[in-house]
């Protein structure tokens, strides 16, 4: 309300205290017009495939083949090809699952929570972040499905009548997780798709005009005959708001239920009530790390500096800083509670994490997750895009190690010293995991090649051109 003084019922106090006008950050720089936005975003899809895209796509496809190969080998041989053995029967599979599902959470935070909070800076990054969510859920889903061993029985996870006449144990958080993750994946796809409908309609008409009937048909098929009618916009915006409203509790519940996989067990180091908020904060932290990792190269490759401004980067860095600090607080609080509870097993579990056989992993986690984000306090660092990108990689690494530390240290050193062990991944596991980065990149590269990477309609709506009361604020 920067121009509140122009309205009739200005409180008298305002003229006395003369408040400073706080200018709103410009979300689209250089006063770009509607048609500039359309040309810019559609131009990416309509233009010739850049050389770097083919290089990245080939590389990503090669890396993705590791996962495919690892999975085929696992299915053909048995789940013993992974390094799991008593007592660590969960290890990289669940680490990777939690890591990827956590990355997805920033996409939903940006698209849903920031939408409800009316954070308009979300508009230029939300489409790509939602795409990241979906592809991250795809990568996450691979691990729990294949860690069951006989994957052709994976449908036993769902309550489908079967020849054993027995049903799932709905008391188990693992069963809750099946519903949480599949709901999350489905709703994320729906949300992403609904957001894309108006943009697909633009592409439909542009390809039609350019004479490319096949692509016009394909975009048109999914555009559902969108024609920008305001009576449609009215329902559309309401549906979008409702989806944002239900995705917000969804995203919080998904990582809460993921944390229940651990917190509901009795294992020292897992059995803590702090897990749900701690996991959700960690998920958003890692997700923003990944958003920065993806968006900064995209911004410079496609010259999107007018749409992803320094203000956007600042906002993302600050959220990373805030959630990273929450995670750091949770690490400290876990230690405090372990001591305060006077439970010797709990106390041992945490001392062992920091100084035991896996101390190297613990200190990687601490340096990446607690120390790295603190650099974002400084404006100079936030303005150095290359440095922000490097720090975002550290965040990704740190959050993978967080899950490794939580899962593996607790399992490898449980109640009975006679059953202690040391877990190391097998080569199959290593390749399967690193291959998922290829799977993710293949999907993401296809997305930036064939779909609008930014919501054009939403970007237009935050420019001054879309304001029917240009110059004087009625609201």
């Amino acid at each position, binding site marked *: 309300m920067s121009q509140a003084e122009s309205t009739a019922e200005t409180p008298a106090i305002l003229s006395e205290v003369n408040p400073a006008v706080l200018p709103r950050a410009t979300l689209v720089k250089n006063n770009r017009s509607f048609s500039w936005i359309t040309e810019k975003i559609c131009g990416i899809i309509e233009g010739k495939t850049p050389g770097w895209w083919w290089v990245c796509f080939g590389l990503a496809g090669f890396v993705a083949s590791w996962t495919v190969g690892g999975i085929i080998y696992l299915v053909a041989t048995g789940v013993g090809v992974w390094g799991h053995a008593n007592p660590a029967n969960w290890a990289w599979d669940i680490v990777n699952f939690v890591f990827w599902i956590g990355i997805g959470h920033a996409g939903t935070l940006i698209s849903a929570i920031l939408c409800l909070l009316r954070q308009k800076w979300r508009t230029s990054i939300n489409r790509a972040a939602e795409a990241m969510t979906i592809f991250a859920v795809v990568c996450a889903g691979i691990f729990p499905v294949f860690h069951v061993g006989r994957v052709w029985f994976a449908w036993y996870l769902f309550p489908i009548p079967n020849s054993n006449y027995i049903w799932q144990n709905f008391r188990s958080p693992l069963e809750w997780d099946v519903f949480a993750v599949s709901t999350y994946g489905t709703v994320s796809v729906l949300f992403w798709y609904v957001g894309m409908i108006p943009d697909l309609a633009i592409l439909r008409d542009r390809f039609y005009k350019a004479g490319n009937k096949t692509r016009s048909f394909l975009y048109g098929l999914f555009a559902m*005959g969108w024609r920008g009618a305001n009576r449609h916009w009215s329902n559309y915006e*309401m549906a979008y708001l409702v989806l944002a409203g239900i995705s917000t509790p969804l995203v919080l519940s998904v990582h809460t239920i993921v944390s229940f996989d651990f917190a509901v067990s009795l294992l020292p180091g897992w059995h803590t009530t702090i897990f749900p908020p701690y996991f959700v904060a960690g998920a958003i932290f890692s997700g923003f790390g990944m958003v920065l990792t993806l968006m900064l190269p995209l911004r410079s490759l496609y010259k999107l500096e007018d749409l992803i401004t320094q203000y956007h980067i600042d906002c993302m860095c600050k959220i990373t800083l805030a959630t990273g600090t929450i995670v750091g607080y949770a690490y400290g609080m876990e230690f405090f509670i372990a001591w305060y509870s006077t439970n010797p097993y709990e106390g041992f579990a945490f001392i062992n994490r920091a100084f035991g056989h896996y101390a190297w992993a613990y200190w990687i986690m601490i340096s990446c997750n607690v120390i790295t984000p603190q650099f974002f306090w400084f404006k100079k660092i936030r303005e150095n895009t290359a440095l922000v990108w490097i720090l975002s990689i550290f965040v990704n690494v740190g959050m993978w190690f967080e899950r490794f530390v939580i899962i593996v240290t607790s399992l490898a050193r449980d109640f009975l010293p006679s059953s202690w062990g040391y877990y190391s991944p097998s080569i199959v596991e290593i390749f399967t995991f690193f291959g998922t980065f290829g799977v993710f990149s293949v999907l993401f590269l296809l997305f930036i090649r064939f779909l609008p990477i930014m919501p054009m309609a939403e970007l237009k709506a935050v420019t001054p051109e879309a*304001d*029917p009361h240009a110059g004087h604020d009625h609201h």
Partner: protein
Amino acid sequence: MAAPLHGVIATFDTAAEIYHAAQKVRDAGFKFWDCITPCPVHGLDGAMGVTRSKVPRFSLVGGLVGFTIGMSMIYFTGAVDYPLIVGGKPFFSPMFAFPIAYELTILVCAFFTIGGMFVLNGQPMHYHPVLKTEHIHRGLDDKFLIVIEARDPKFDAEATKSFLESAGGKDITDVEG
């Protein structure tokens, strides 16, 4: 045979222009008309006299259906069809059934919300007279359009055109049906 007339279409350059033009069309008493905009324009619903969207009613029904499915599925499987003692816990309790019922609430609600939006919008509708006009390209890009349909009782091919012109519309043409 000449195609039947769908209505007339007019172009406006700015959001402010269409906002004020929409108020005039609304006040003139037209019923079957619409604005076509590249992005949602703040306050245009009010200027057009469009009432609050009914999508949330679908969402509510969807949410209730999802919650009921979740709770009754877990009750049926655990307490009726195959009661099995697990860890000495009850066959059914809304407590342990809650997380799944909660997820299904959201899942079914999402489908109903989107389905409701399509039903209310009459979509998918891949063929529409407006989509055949030249105007639509700019209407989805950077211009603002008003379409008044011929089936409106107040519609009159010539009078409506001059009315739109007086409201500030440009490039006013017929839309073939």
